[in-house]
């Protein structure tokens, strides 16, 4: 799976969590939570969806590494490559 494909899946999952968000204007280098209204339950559901769709179980200790869209894509890509 390419990074672009991972990005597309991540954006789709974010859209399911926050359907009102305009993801086309999401700045991939800025904190997602500063741009989309996401609470802790949304964040957990997003991580569960990542696990289900992309096969990556993200430990809680790594949450700080997932602040931006680019960081999420990079993290998932690295985890999948290391499997």
């Amino acid at each position, binding site marked *: 799976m390419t990074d672009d494909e991972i990005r597309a899946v991540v954006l789709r999952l974010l859209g399911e969590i*926050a*359907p*009102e968000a305009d993801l086309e204007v999401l700045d991939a280098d800025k904190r997602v*939570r500063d741009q989309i*209204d996401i*609470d*802790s*339950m949304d964040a*957990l*559901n997003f*991580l*569960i969806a990542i*696990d289900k769709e992309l096969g990556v*179980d*993200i*430990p*809680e*200790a790594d949450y700080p590494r997932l602040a931006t869209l680019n960081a999420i894509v990079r993290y998932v890509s690295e985890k999948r490559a290391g499997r």
Partner: protein
Amino acid sequence: MAEFLMPILGADMTAGTLVAWRKQPGDRVERGDIIAEVESDKADVEVEIFVTGVLDRILVEPGTKVPVGTPLAIIREEGGAAPPAATAAALPAAAPAPPRRPAPAARPAAEGGRLRISPSARQLAQQLGVDLSGVTGSGPDGRIMRRDIEEAAASTAGALPPVELDRQTRMRQAIAAAMARSAREIPHFHLTTTIDMSRAMAWLSAENARRPVTERLLYGAVLLKAMALALRDVPELNATWSGERVVPNPAIHVGVAISLRQGGLVAPAIHDTDRQSLTELMEKFRDVAQRARAGSLRSSEMSDPTITMTSLGETGAESVFGLIYPPQVALVGFGRVAERAVSIGGQIVSHPVVTATLSADHRVADGHRGSVYLAALERLLQEPSQL
């Protein structure tokens, strides 16, 4: 026979719209079954039945808005005989809304294309903007008189089509009504305490590190369980206020405030909160949050809480002085968890702390008992593995 009534799903709900029936006449229903969907101002709600029997007859069709307490269906309780047809036919149907005003007797004002109207009535019609084609004359030979114009103007004003309010507006109206009633009727008192969360947060991190993501716990689940267990020490806060007296609740159903993406919030119960393991509680918490946002809560979840938890999460304000949702008697607001300097054994160290604020109804408890409740809450949060 039992009547299945339009339930009250919020403090100031006066009417609801029956959206759909999930059961049909002749279907067997068991206590707890969802048999209908109702739309209130705050949410679409799946309504449960509290008797076991057979759905005998439907009295209200989908799309109909009826007052709270209106019979929606007749349930033949288990073992009961089917009523004879005449009896069934005699059962009262939901009363239709009365017409705004009786229709006037039809009397032609215009015959052969010429309108019979007095000059002063015509002038008045122009002043009031009354469309003469819809006015029936009450004068000789159907002549339109001034009084007809006045009545038509009044009728038009009274019969203006109702403004179609969107869900968001109705949600704000429902919250406004409930919170205004709370502020007006409930003599609140507030108690605040700062709780050291270092043990709870460390335990939560360690616990989540060994759990797959699908079973991870949120901090809110820990707070919910601690709130529920603390009620065992102060059962008077596990009650509702009936308007005249306290009604104790035998089970513990803590409500949890969930903000909705479109704005507004709901606070459904997590049933038997004190009896759930943290894993079970987290599962129910996720389920109820998803259904709250999807608009498919159940009637008992809306009506059963006696106390509500509201947590501002990681980025919110430091403390919350909430308003109690009537007829509940208490609410605990948790601010954000923040690192603060605390003195332990004479040493100043940095610990995560949270401000917990109890809002309680002074008609059912006093400050001393409220303080005992907060002390129990604090004690429980120092032993998270025991929750």
